[in-house]
């Protein structure tokens, strides 16, 4: 069956540009998570949805970060006015209770 997919896989943005990262979870998975992984580090939690409800956004580093999942399936993570410190791999995961299953990630480079 299809796993979690993310697009684009790579994104280069100039400082100050807005970016949008997409996540397609495993079909039927109610829970969806976004993580940020800096180089040489483990993933760090950003935000969590259950269906279309955003239940936890405590990990979003600033109000420039915004996530949505309007129909309870596909999710978009948007970063406004990108800064160099936003350069990282952004991972999406979905779950139905047996663990979280991750997509391949989007590598964002801000120049």
């Amino acid at each position, binding site marked *: 069956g299809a796993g*979690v997919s*993310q697009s684009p896989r790579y994104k280069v943005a100039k400082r100050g540009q807005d970016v949008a990262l997409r996540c397609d979870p495993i079909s039927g998975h*109610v*829970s969806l*998570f976004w*993580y940020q992984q800096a180089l*040489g*580090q*483990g*993933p*760090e*939690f950003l935000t*969590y949805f*259950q269906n279309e409800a955003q239940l*936890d956004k405590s*990990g979003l580093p600033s109000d420039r970060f915004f996530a949505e999942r309007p129909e309870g399936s596909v999710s978009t993570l948007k970063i406004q006015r990108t800064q160099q410190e936003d350069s990282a791999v952004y*991972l999406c*995961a979905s*779950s*139905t*209770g*047996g*663990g*979280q*299953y*991750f*997509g*391949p*990630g989007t590598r964002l480079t801000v120049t």
Partner: protein
Amino acid sequence: AQSVTQPDIHITVSEGASLELRCNYSYGATPYLFWYVQSPGQGLQLLLKYFSGDTLVQGIKGFEAEFKRSQSSFNLRKPSVHWSDAAEYFCAVGDHGGSQGNLIFGKGTKLSVKP
């Protein structure tokens, strides 16, 4: 505070040798524990998980892990390492099987395999 510690940043083993990767956690509630593997440029693949019951759990690719509550540890083992096991390994802790809250990850252990 909730945390996961992987004391070894980098481990090198010879192909065919046994492997043990260490993981210690600090978690207030009953922990659900996971090991993930990440190859370069890839996402994380779930190797195994512990929710309850038998403290020795089997995973994919011949890996196993043992939960020791008294030591707050969940070490990953493999009896004979293959060159294809070279990757980065992450231990994580969460609750509700990972469906109702975020996972907390360690910083990872990079495994190199010598021929």
